[in-house]
């Protein structure tokens, strides 16, 4: 069993949900988060600065600004990991920085509370 944690853009949630269902991972868990990456400059802000907006210039000076993101957590069986990761990449990729990251972590066990069954049976 693996835990797939993805940081994605806020406006990509609907596509992400559909893609996860298609990839066979119906169950997931998401919450709002803020984050920053390697610190690439937002191209829109750069444009604004060129056009002479003072607000944009002040944003450019701000170091390590946090952008709103969604954190999607999916627990999947080992054989589904590649499909889920590919689905997340394909749907969330715009090619610009800020698309997000995907992390794959080992997950020791999972238990379905309703029935008490554990292991991969509990997450099908």
């Amino acid at each position, binding site marked *: 069993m*693996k835990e797939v944690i*993805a*940081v*994605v853009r806020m406006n990509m949630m609907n596509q992400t949900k559909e893609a996860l269902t298609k990839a066979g991972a119906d169950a997931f868990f998401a*919450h*709002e*988060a*803020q*984050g*920053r*990456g*390697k*610190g*690439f*400059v937002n191209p829109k802000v750069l444009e604004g600065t060129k056009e002479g907006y003072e607000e944009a210039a002040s944003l450019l000076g701000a*170091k*390590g600004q*946090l952008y709103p*993101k969604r*954190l999607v957590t999916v627990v999947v069986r080992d054989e589904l990991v590649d499909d889920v*990761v590919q689905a*997340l*990449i394909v749907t*969330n*990729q*715009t*090619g*610009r*920085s*800020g*698309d*997000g*990251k*995907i*992390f*794959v*972590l*080992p997950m020791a066990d999972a238990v379905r509370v309703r029935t008490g069954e554990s292991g991969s049976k509990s997450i099908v």
Partner: protein
Amino acid sequence: MLTMIRAIVRPEKADKVLAALMDAGFPSVTKYSVAGRGKQRGIKIGDVTYDEIPKVMLMSVINPADKEFVIETIMKTAKSGSKGAFGDGKIFVSDVEEAYTISSGVREIAFASAGVAP
């Protein structure tokens, strides 16, 4: 193999920790709000017990070699006073088997420890 650091810190300390990490060359962090209690079973004031205390979770994925340094940095900045106090938080470390950058679709082998835009 990469390492995920998840730190639960006081909300008022989060900005300080984020700034310290940025200065130390670890710009990539995700932050979200959580609520929880610790060993002290929350805070009891008079007859009322508060056991859902708001905290901030900071998540960062780094190279295993930088683990010690990042933990040290968070520890130093998130502590209250020099001795620390109950409720300062916890740091959890876990292994990340794979990491992908969505914009390029590249599977990351290692993250640069000094986050400078190319």
